[in-house]
């Protein structure tokens, strides 16, 4: 097998298995979409034990967190520091450091508030702030402070800035928030003024669905629709296509 032939087979194999992974993700998105469609949104006051879907605003519970770069008050944050690296003819973003912090918070609607323990939740929120550095472009002060605290250098040879990007995702107090998870009796909760005062939404032992987003339900469903289309159809086409390339290469078809 020649070097270029080996590459074709290698990439096709990656494509084949990547397609299967995409396909499985598409089916998983389909399952979640159906579950969201089938579960009506509960008012917090009338939330009952079991799978619930609530929509309201995030309210801090046990002290606020502070986002790592922009120092915004929040109840959840996630960040990543990436560097753009060249390797031969190819180049890609490499993650140097990433992390997240979750704290319990309340979801409040016009009928009350209910405690949410976001541990193990699938949290999908868009990027809230992104900073970049590169030639002639220093990272902002807030990012420099974080980099020096964590021993990460933004400078390369001769003190030139590396091409880097710094992304931050967070849920601020007052952000609209959608939560689907298992409501259960909890000792920790004591904030709701109404029937949900003893409940906490968390990841259930049997039902694994625990999803948090700062988008309204309609937008979540539309985004999941896109994922299903790309995952199920795109994944299947990619896998079969890559398999066809491998077979053609070996002359099996």
């Amino acid at each position, binding site marked *: 097998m020649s070097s270029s032939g080996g590459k074709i087979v290698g990439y096709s194999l990656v494509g084949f298995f990547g397609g299967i992974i995409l396909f499985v993700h598409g089916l998983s998105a389909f*399952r979640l979409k*159906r*579950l969201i469609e*089938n579960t009506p949104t509960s008012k917090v*006051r009338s939330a*009952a034990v079991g799978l619930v879907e609530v929509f309201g605003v995030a309210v801090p519970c046990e002290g606020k967190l502070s986002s790592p770069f922009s120092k915004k008050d929040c109840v959840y944050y996630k960040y990543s520091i990436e560097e753009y690296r060249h390797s031969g003819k190819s180049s890609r973003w490499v993650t140097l450091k990433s992390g997240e912090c979750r704290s319990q918070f309340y979801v409040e609607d016009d009928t009350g508030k209910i405690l949410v323990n976001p541990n193990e939740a699938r949290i999908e929120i868009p990027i809230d702030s992104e900073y970049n550095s590169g030639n002639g472009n220093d990272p902002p002060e807030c990012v420099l402070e974080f980099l020096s605290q964590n021993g990460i250098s933004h400078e390369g040879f001769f003190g030139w800035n590396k091409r880097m990007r710094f992304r931050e995702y967070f849920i601020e107090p007052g952000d609209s928030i959608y939560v689907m998870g298992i409501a259960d009796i909890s000792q920790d909760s004591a904030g709701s003024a109404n*029937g949900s005062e003893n409940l906490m939404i968390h990841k259930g032992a049997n039902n694994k669905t625990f999803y948090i987003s700062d988008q309204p339900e309609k937008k979540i469903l539309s985004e999941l629709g896109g994922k299903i289309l790309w995952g*199920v159809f795109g994944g*299947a086409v990619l896998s079969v296509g890559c398999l066809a390339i491998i077979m053609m290469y070996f002359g099996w*078809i």
Partner: protein
Amino acid sequence: MSTGTDLLLFTGAAFVLIAVVVYFVSIFNGLAMLKNNIGKSWANIDVLLTQRADELPNLVSTVKGYMAHEQKTLQAVTDARAALMNARTVGEKAGVDKDTTEAVKTLYAVAENYPDLKANQSFLKLQDRITGIENEIADRREFYNDSVTAYNIRIQSIPDIVVATALRYRPEELFKAEEGKRQVVEVKI
């Protein structure tokens, strides 16, 4: 056809088959979940209806001493409670729930004319408790009706109708008072 082409066709067919199986399993599970949701949300309403019905005799006995001349108002609350206890179907319960809410509202309005009653702590506590229960009933009724609507739409849509027909799923009743079904059972206090 070569073995390679067969394998390719087999792989393509496997993807299609898996997608179709997952799709129909999700329809089946979705319908089962919707049906269970209806049962669960109805049970949650029923609990609250019972809790409110349990509080009504306390309310009547608390206000009776102050509102001796308001027999008609008190009778309406008692009648509504009795009708609630006798109601069996969702439609019947929805009808008498509305009657009960109206009877209690009238009682609160009449109570405004009795300053001593308005200052009575037991009455105020009961009023708060019953109002809280009624608010919860309203929220849960909305949730129940949303569940029923989602289910009824699903079982009449293609392709869910195929699975629903095979499972003999029938449309469910909304928690909504229908004029023809509203009836008040007369009970003497």
